[in-house]
């Protein structure tokens, strides 16, 4: 069964159909790419999947459950986590606290317990710290745990965003241009990390990316979006060699 199943997803902004009849099926454990020229509606698809926008039409199912129209917060609880094209970290919090914020719904103690510093506070905080440090290690960020997120270099900020998203324990991870602004070395490293995350966490990943080296290197299947519509879907190698896709990217 597919983990993510999207049917006829459509949204218009003032008459413009930003996403028009979008369909996708992603199987568990897949590394899936969403590509297309600038302004094709890729990020809008992410915003629809995560409830930032409500679709005009269409159904989104995650693991068989209809999550269409839910609030962003509830969609995250249902199992979708994401990163952002323009990095959105909690800049004034430490790197560790960024990840711990992601653990918010996994580890519980009440506000009263926190204010009164009851034993449950110390116990759960300790567990959160351990879990957060484990996640930071995956991304080689454990050395910077005490740094403010704002003080991390760009590439590490992108990694921290992924770590924070993973902390929410999602079934599906959405990455919006994870390699944007990275040099080829960093991109190569990022490819390894993404693969590692998929294997280690048994994660299903849908990513938007312009870097064709990354896309062809790690994505198993692709959907190409053009002017809000699906231009093509299929195996990465097939899609990337399709004349239609090449035209869409390079123009007539």
């Amino acid at each position, binding site marked *: 069964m597919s983990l993510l199943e999207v049917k006829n997803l459509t949204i218009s902004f003032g008459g413009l159909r930003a996403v028009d009849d979008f369909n996708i099926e992603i199987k568990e454990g897949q590394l899936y790419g969403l590509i297309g020229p600038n302004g094709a509606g890729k*990020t809008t698809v992410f*915003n629809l999947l995560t409830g*930032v926008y409500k679709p005009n039409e269409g159904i989104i199912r995650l693991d068989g459950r209809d999550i269409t129209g839910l609030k962003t917060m509830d969609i995250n609880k249902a199992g979708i986590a994401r990163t*952002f094209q323009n990095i959105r970290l909690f800049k004034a919090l430490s790197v560790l606290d960024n990840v711990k914020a992601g653990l918010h719904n996994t580890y519980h103690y009440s506000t009263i317990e926190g204010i009164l510093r009851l034993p449950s506070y110390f116990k759960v905080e300790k567990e959160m710290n351990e879990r957060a440090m484990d996640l930071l290690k995956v991304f080689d960020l454990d050395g910077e745990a005490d740094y403010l997120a704002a003080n991390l270099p760009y590439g590490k900020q992108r990694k921290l965003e992924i770590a924070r998203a993973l902390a929410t324990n999602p079934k599906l991870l959405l990455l919006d241009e994870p390699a944007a602004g990275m040099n080829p070395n960093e991109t190569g490293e990022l490819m390894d990390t993404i693969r590692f995350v998929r294997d280690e966490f048994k994660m299903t990943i849908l990513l938007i990316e312009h870097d064709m080296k990354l896309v062809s290197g790690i994505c198993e299947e692709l959907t190409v979006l053009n002017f809000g519509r699906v231009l093509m879907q299929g195996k990465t190698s097939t899609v990337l060699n399709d004349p239609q896709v090449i035209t869409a990217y390079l123009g007539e």
Partner: protein
Amino acid sequence: MSFISYLINGISLGSVYAIIALGYTMVYGIAKMLNFAHGDVIMVGAFTVFTIVSTLGLPPALGILVAIIVCTVFGITIERVAYKPLRNAASPLAVLITAIGVSYLLQNLALIIFGANTKSFTSVVAVKPLKLAEGNLVISGETIVTIIVGIAVMIILSLFISKAKAGQAMLAVAEDKGAAQLMGINVNKTIALTFAIGSALAAVAGVLLCSAYPSLTPYTGAMPGIKAFVAAVFGGIGSIPGAMIGGILLGIIEIFGKAYISSQMADAIVFAVLIIVLLVKPTGILGKKIQEKV
């Protein structure tokens, strides 16, 4: 008949609010700051006229002219000394607090120079009251002049912004400082000009306000300043037509509230209406909806 008279008084008070709110909204639009000292510039204008007319016995016209000049100079100086250094501060609250400091400064300067006693302001308006409907409806000269000046200010300002080069520059700087700079607009000069115009308007408002309500203290400007701030937000802060509409509506609501509901509750009514408007339309009547891009 009393309804019409209240309405006219409301429009008159509203015109004063609108003139102050114009200054508020222009400064907000361009410098993205709430200039809490704006209300106190009104007081400075009123005291200038008071000194020239009542103390020195010189003609009111001269008083108004000097008040406009004094307020303009104050406005530009305040911007240069207290606000400009904080334009790129880490938090927008910094300049807000500094504006509060400037407000205290102006109030206490006036307190030292003029004392805490209420001064009775001699109206600068020489127009005779208008008697209508066989004397049942009397419209004071101050009311007439205030409304006329209010309308004139709005027209001139609208023309200035839409036609004059400097007005267009203001719009550009308000929209995007960086881009305006790249287009060759002198951003510092444009911001200074905005403060100058706003302060000159405050002087005019001060004269009109004190002619209609003749008691003058160092704190005279504070409440009208807050009300004008409310009017600006009400109409959609940053929007010039919004400030006019917001100001006039606020004046009418205040006078009607005083007349028909309770004079003690008039301020509460004004604020309640503001809250309701913002809950229905979170950026005010004519405010632009800002959508954050994800």
